[in-house]
């Protein structure tokens, strides 16, 4: 049984259908990436999984149980963490307060998790008392990921962690995502940066205007002509 299953999922914004029946699954321990251009429906997919949006039809199962009717805070409670698009750290809370907000639902101590987060992102522990809004883009992304980890998710949804960051920082963040995965957290990664994402992920889906058009393992996608043309900026047949 897959950890997360989406079956023929439809999502509408008013009359506009953003997801036209997508089916995908994520198995425990995997890193799966969801690729697609702007407006393909990647963010919509993640927001639907985490309960911020309601599907109009279809099934959404986490560990075999339907979750499409749960409100966002309950989805978090059953083990799905969401790092939203554009980082969205709390700008006027300190780094420490941001992380504490991430553990909002957890009862009891969170020292252990926090230590692990500081392990993964040493720069955050140097900036504990600094306001979230004054961090650099890369640091804010790290804080957003750290905040999501504070709830000890079993499945982590990452929405374009590379957005607006320098290549060097992107590489570093992707390394850390691999590390988080090795800790036993399953990852569903939405990206436009297909080359990086496919190197990290085991499998990938390609989303185009609300439908899944390809579903392959990462190596196959990386060598696929259409993917190379559309997302890696290579010209096919030019040579």
């Amino acid at each position, binding site marked *: 049984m897959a950890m997360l299953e989406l079956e023929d999922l439809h999502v509408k914004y008013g009359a506009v259908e953003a997801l036209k029946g997508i089916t995908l699954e994520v198995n425990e321990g995997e890193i799966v990436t969801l690729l697609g251009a702007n407006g393909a429906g990647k963010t919509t997919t993640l927001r639907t999984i985490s309960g911020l949006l309601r599907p109009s039809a279809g099934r959404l199962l986490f560990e075999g149980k339907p979750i499409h009717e749960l409100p966002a805070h309950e989805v978090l409670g059953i083990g799905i963490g969401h790092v939203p698009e554009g980082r969205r750290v709390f700008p006027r809370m300190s780094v420490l307060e941001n992380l504490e*907000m991430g553990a*909002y639902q957890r009862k009891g101590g969170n020292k252990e998790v926090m230590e692990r987060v500081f392990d993964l992102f040493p720069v955050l522990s140097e900036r504990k008392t600094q306001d979230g809004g*004054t961090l650099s883009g890369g640091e804010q992304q790290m804080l957003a990921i750290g905040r999501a980890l504070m*709830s000890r998710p079993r499945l982590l949804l990452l929405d374009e962690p590379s957005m607006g960051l320098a290549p060097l920082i992107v590489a570093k963040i992707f390394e850390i995502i691999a590390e988080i995965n090795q800790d036993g957290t399953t990852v569903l990664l939405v990206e436009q940066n297909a080359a990086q994402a496919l190197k990290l992920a085991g499998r990938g889906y390609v989303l185009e205007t609300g439908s899944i058009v390809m579903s392959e393992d990462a190596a196959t996608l990386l060598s696929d002509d259409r993917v190379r043309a559309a997302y890696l900026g290579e010209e096919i047949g030019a040579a």
Partner: protein
Amino acid sequence: MTTVDAVQRGSTWSGVQRWARRDEVRRAACLVALMVTIAVITGPDGSQNSPYSGLRGSLLSRHAIPFYVLAVILAATSLAGGRWTTAATAPVRALRQRTTGIVIPKPVKLVALALLAVLVLYYPTTLAPFWQTVLVDQMGIYVLLAVGLNVVVGFAGLLDLGYIAFFAIGAYTTAYFTDKLPVHPPFTLNPFFVFPIAVGAALLAGVILGGPTLRLRGDYLAIVTLGFGEIVRITAVNSDAITNGPQGAFGIPHFSAFGYHWTLDSLPYYYLLLVVVALVVFFFRRLDDSRVGRAWAAIREDEVAAAATGIPTLKFKLMAFAIGASTSGFAGVIYASKVGFINPDNFPLLLSILVLTMVIFGGMGSIYGVILGAAVLGWLPNYLRDYVPAQDRFIYFGALLIVMMIFRPQGLLPSRRRSRELRLSELGIGGADGTGPIPGSTQ
């Protein structure tokens, strides 16, 4: 040589331009303009024969002199480029630095608290009846209202412009249960025992209004609540058979409970308000320090992020709204019983805005700041009564607000978080109002 001259002149000119663009110069200029305007408006009137005599008279009148002096001082300090002010405030800063981190010993704290208690408990008994009435009608009730609105605006960051509607609901509930409306209640109560019913009614109204509208944010919520406030007032005006229309209700009895009877005397109402405000402050402070307060802060900062970190945002927003509404309803009962008559004119939009002004003036999010803000703004027009003509009173009120927003936008006693917000917004991070969406973040 001529070119050198031109260059020098050019650089002087651009220097002047740079100087004029400086913040403190602009502030001083605003202030001078404001002072001149006030001097003209509050000065003698012109006549048809010599239209400029009024202008001349007001600009040269003795009332204008303090304004000119103040403006000159401010202009001078800005000319000195903050050097004087830094020099002048250096001892204060040194003292502040030395005192931060010093824990005030407990006995000192207790003595200060005792002094405050004596002041609050004893001082009002020495006042003239007029001031005792002001203390209750114009200050105490507004303090309670402002502390309640502070939960909505200051803690949860929801801009509510229909706040006075809940005050009206509390007051009309009192009128209904004391049988002073055309419709008769199943049983009559003394206003004192209407408290739970009125609070319940206001809370229910808050939830009914909040449920559908709290999905909106910032300006949109402000407009919907403004509409709600007007709906309540206009309904009260037009429902003659229920609310007695524009005449309203009169003869609402004074409180009477546990063998004690409140009368026309304002002092007992003052002590009642004191107890209520103390309880409310205690409760709200605990709330702000709790998980609930944390959730409100997160919602204020970024609602989507708050939802993504597992905060049931709608629930907490509704809670803030309901708490504010019930506090307002509570104040409505006291008002109705104290004043004895109510009509729809007692609950205009302006009053919602006044309470909001008190919250901002005192320091949004800071309970003690808000209390001080409401007390000062309630007291000021009455104080001015003896010194300036009646029609000029609110000009001074407005001037105070403008000066305050220029020089101390964070309020009298700002909350730590609010000061931080303003500082960060000056750096271009986040909105200064703490209610709108945050620029630079997507969606």
